[in-house]
């Protein structure tokens, strides 16, 4: 028991890192749901592709032998490319896989099935173009193992702190964007009452596209952070990460932006603590137990409202 307590602070910091990244990826699910009432099941693949783009940036830098790679500029470069690529991919998905369906007034099921199709398509596209074998992130070149700091008696690698800070800043930025800017107001208006938003002169299709861009870009950033942390990526990594982020979004209340952040944090912490106190093999089970419990007892999530009621309007 004493051993467990000794590593507790460390596990909490890991949990926070994991949680902020889950939250980041969960935002993509929740934002898209907010404006379109659909679950973008291909979001996990967008996350995975973000990880690949980050890997490529790092690989190209290594190949070009630009000299010493300092994370202070390399990580932002990886994030920027991954976010742009993932964001545009999300917009493309919306334009070609979902919009034709929702414009034709298809039922909810149509876009959902299209999303599952897109997810399978993207997995296979990556497998065929990048190979089925995993790729290794050269994280240790950026963050030497000796870069550790002491927090509350725990020795934590600098990378973990960077993850928390990057994911935290992005969530904060998104929060400001949504709450304080005109663009954010138009996103909220579309989420609350699409027809009224139209009547105010909001171009709803544009807002939906922008929402896909933002959510996907954050997912892509999440992919880079996870890649750096686990150092191994493959074409299938979006599946379980996506399910976990989706769980986080449902836990917080799907459609609710603050809920996604909170749900991500809780899930990350619970997972990390579960590993501490239980057999690590149960780590993934924890997320799905939470998902089932939430769906049964509080389907609207922690911060969400009763979506079923709202949709009747």
């Amino acid at each position, binding site marked *: 028991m004493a051993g467990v307590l000794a590593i507790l602070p460390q596990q909490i910091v890991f949990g926070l890192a994991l949680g902020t990244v889950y939250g980041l990826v969960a935002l993509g699910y929740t934002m898209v749901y907010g404006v379109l009432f659909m679950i973008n099941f291909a979001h996990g693949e967008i996350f995975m592709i973000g990880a690949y783009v980050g890997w490529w940036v790092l690989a190209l830098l290594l190949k070009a032998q630009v000299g010493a790679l300092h994370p202070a500029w390399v990580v932002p470069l990886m994030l920027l490319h991954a976010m742009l690529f993932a964001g545009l991919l999300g917009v493309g998905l919306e334009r070609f896989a979902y919009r034709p369906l929702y414009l034709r007034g298809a039922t909810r099921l149509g876009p959902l099935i299209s999303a599952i199709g897109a997810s399978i398509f993207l997995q296979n596209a990556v497998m065929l173009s990048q190979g089925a074998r995993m790729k290794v992130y050269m994280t240790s070149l950026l963050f030497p193992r000796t870069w550790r700091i002491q927090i509350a008696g725990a020795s934590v690698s600098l990378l973990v702190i960077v993850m928390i800070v990057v994911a935290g800043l992005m969530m904060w930025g998104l929060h400001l964007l949504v709450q304080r800017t*005109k663009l954010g*107001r*138009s996103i*909220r*208006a579309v989420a*609350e*009452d699409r*027809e*009224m*938003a*139209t*009547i*105010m*002169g*909001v*171009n709803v299709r544009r807002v939906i596209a922008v929402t896909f861009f933002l959510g996907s870009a954050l997912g892509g950033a999440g992919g880079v952070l996870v890649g750096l942390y686990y150092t191994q990526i493959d074409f299938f990594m979006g599946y379980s990460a996506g399910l976990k982020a989706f769980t986080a979004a449902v836990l917080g209340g799907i459609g609710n932006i603050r809920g996604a952040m909170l749900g991500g944090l809780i899930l990350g912490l619970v997972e990390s603590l579960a590993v501490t106190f239980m057999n690590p093999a149960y780590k993934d089970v924890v997320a799905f137990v939470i998902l089932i419990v939430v769906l049964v007892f509080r389907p609207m999530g922690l911060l969400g409202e009763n979506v079923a009621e709202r949709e009747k309007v």
Partner: protein
Amino acid sequence: MLKLTDVVAHYGPIQVLKSVNLEVRAGEIVCLLGGNASGKSTTMKTILGVVRPTAGRVEFEDQRIDRLPTETIVRRGISLVPEARRIFARMTVWENLAMGAFTRQKAPAGELAADVERVYALFPRLAERQHQLGGTLSGGEQQMLAIGRALMARPRLLLMDEPSMGLAPVLVDQVFDIIQSINRLGTTILVVEQNAAVALSIASRGYVLQNGRIVVHDAARALLAADHIRRAYLGED
């Protein structure tokens, strides 16, 4: 200023507007009457392009607008106070007003702030509650907010869909006073009302819509005096 010619509109296969002919001249208050489900709200939405006419034409200031996107129509100077207010419940009063000015991209911030102040001057209750969420306002306050939000677009033509619905009698009079003063300041108004007597008393002309067709059209005074109108829409026998 606004002219609808033989406008037809459908929801899916159902024809809701069969033939709507209606004209509003600059500076007027025109009243659109009609029973439940006769197509009054649909007419309003068709003018704004939220519902697309399947035949006929809508002209605003001598230009066809029936193929334009709603944002362009709003930008040209038409805004709507919708049926049942439809304010954004999860936005503050101030944010609702800001949404009203959404299409005024190039307006300097100072100008928008001045317009917000003008709305607050018209409805002091809104000023007191500017940081409160729209959903927490009373029905009357929500109606004031819906009107203020529409004014933020600086419309030349204001469409109002049953602005007195669900309001206490005192408030009904207040709302119509406001409509009159908005009109005096230069905004043309097309108002749909169940409260036909009050609406006709401030309007210059009125139209009666029945089953998607305009069946009567006359000066407001004549409509107020006409027996069959009184029976059908003013609740008198």
